């Protein structure tokens, strides 16, 4: 009985990190989505200057471990602008994910049939209008499978903000483990929570994918 009691208390403490984990993931994915789409558009449709900028962003960010970006934002950038650990961590993950997402969206834009742009221009759309109302909606759909994979990676990478003290699931599990000296219970609960989150997210994304599949 005492064990069950302890289990419930531990679970209740760790599960409070669930919302933090989800928050970090959501902010990182949103920032990454914005960066990823913009960079992909610049990379595929931009002039040579912007193409180079977008390519450099993607290559450089992907060459650096994500945790280093987290440290840079928390210890370096946060020295100039006021950033909470939560914000610094989420933004760092977002910047990192943006680079990977830009590659996903670049592939998606390149996979849109070439006739689509021509047809859009032929009815008098400007290049910008064609990208916005014809190519982007198709690229988003084409990117869904790859994006879903990236989303689960970001969810799991959200554990990295642990190092700057954001009280997400892993951080809380580690705190409990240090206090109770029962790592099995603490990390077991963390493991199950991540498992549940990832499986739930995969299901959700598969539903979205089915719903918006592009028929060609």
């Amino acid at each position, binding site marked *: 009985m005492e064990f069950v009691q302890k289990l419930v208390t531990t679970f209740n403490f760790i599960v409070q990190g669930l919302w933090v984990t989800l928050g970090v993931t959501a902010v990182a994915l949103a920032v990454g989505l914005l960066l990823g789409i913009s960079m992909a558009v610049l990379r595929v449709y931009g002039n040579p200057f912007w193409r180079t900028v977008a390519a450099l962003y993607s290559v450089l960010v992907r060459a650096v471990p994500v945790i280093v970006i987290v440290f840079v934002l928390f210890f370096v950038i946060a020295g100039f602008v006021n950033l909470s650990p939560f914000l610094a961590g989420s933004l760092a993950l977002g910047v990192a994910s943006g680079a990977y997402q830009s590659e996903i969206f670049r592939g998606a834009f390149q996979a849109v049939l070439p006739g689509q742009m*021509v*047809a859009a*221009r*032929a*009815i*008098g*759309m400007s290049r910008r209008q064609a990208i916005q*109302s014809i190519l982007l909606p*198709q690229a988003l759909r084409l990117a869904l499978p790859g994006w879903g994979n990236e989303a689960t990676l970001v969810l799991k990478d959200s554990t990295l903000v642990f190092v700057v003290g954001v009280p997400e699931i892993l951080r809380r599990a580690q705190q409990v483990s240090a206090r109770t000296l029962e790592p099995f219970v603490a990390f077991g609960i963390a493991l199950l929570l991540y498992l549940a989150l990832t499986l739930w997210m995969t299901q959700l994304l598969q539903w979205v994918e089915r719903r918006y599949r592009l*028929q060609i």
Partner: protein
Amino acid sequence: MNPTPILRVEELYKSFGQTAVLKGFSLSIQPQEVAVLVGPSGSGKSTLLRCINLLDPPNAGRIWLEQEEITAAGVNPDRIRQRIGMVFQDFNLFTHLTALGNVMVGLTKVRKMHKKEAHELALFELERVGLVDRAGHYPAQLSGGQKQRVAIARALGMDPHLMLFDEPTSALDPELTGEVLEVMQQLASEGMTMIVVSHEMGFARQVASRVVFLEGGVVVEQGPPAQMFERPAQERTRVFLRKIADLDERSR
């Protein structure tokens, strides 16, 4: 005698890399004319159409559309293209939009119509091509002939003054070409000015006001269909049209 041409093409040159496709091409189209362009593959027919609506700007030469020189510096090609409808060989319908959406998107985004107004006009254009009952279908759910008719409706929605058809039936199964040609014939009878690249000789005979034979990037010969088919002036024209007619017959 002749009214002002709706389109005048003068001494057009267009090359892709080392390959010269149009070599001083000139053509003049009167309002309500239906000109059918024929010629061997690589003779510059599709390139000409893409030059006329500035999708591939010419290297040299001038084009006038309704008195306005559209090859002049400072002309916004997007504005010109609204007046020139284009129909492609492989339809190029927007894959993520329904038939209705395909017609509507240009109305709302380019003509800046309100959604309700655009919806009504799009339905009207689909009605014109006999596909109002397919309004909610996605391109993947339509037959080739239906796709091409939606593509025609999409172009008509922009209220073009001139329609370009780039081999509109070449990608279709033979039994589906009829429905597309019928829509085109109906358009012609309503007075639409059309330039059609096609080897449908039946259509050329019945609907064309003029047949233009191109080869090597220039006009070899042009004239009313009867003259072009029965007594062409150039031997080259006779040989080519005979070949096409034979192929046409054999496929029937």
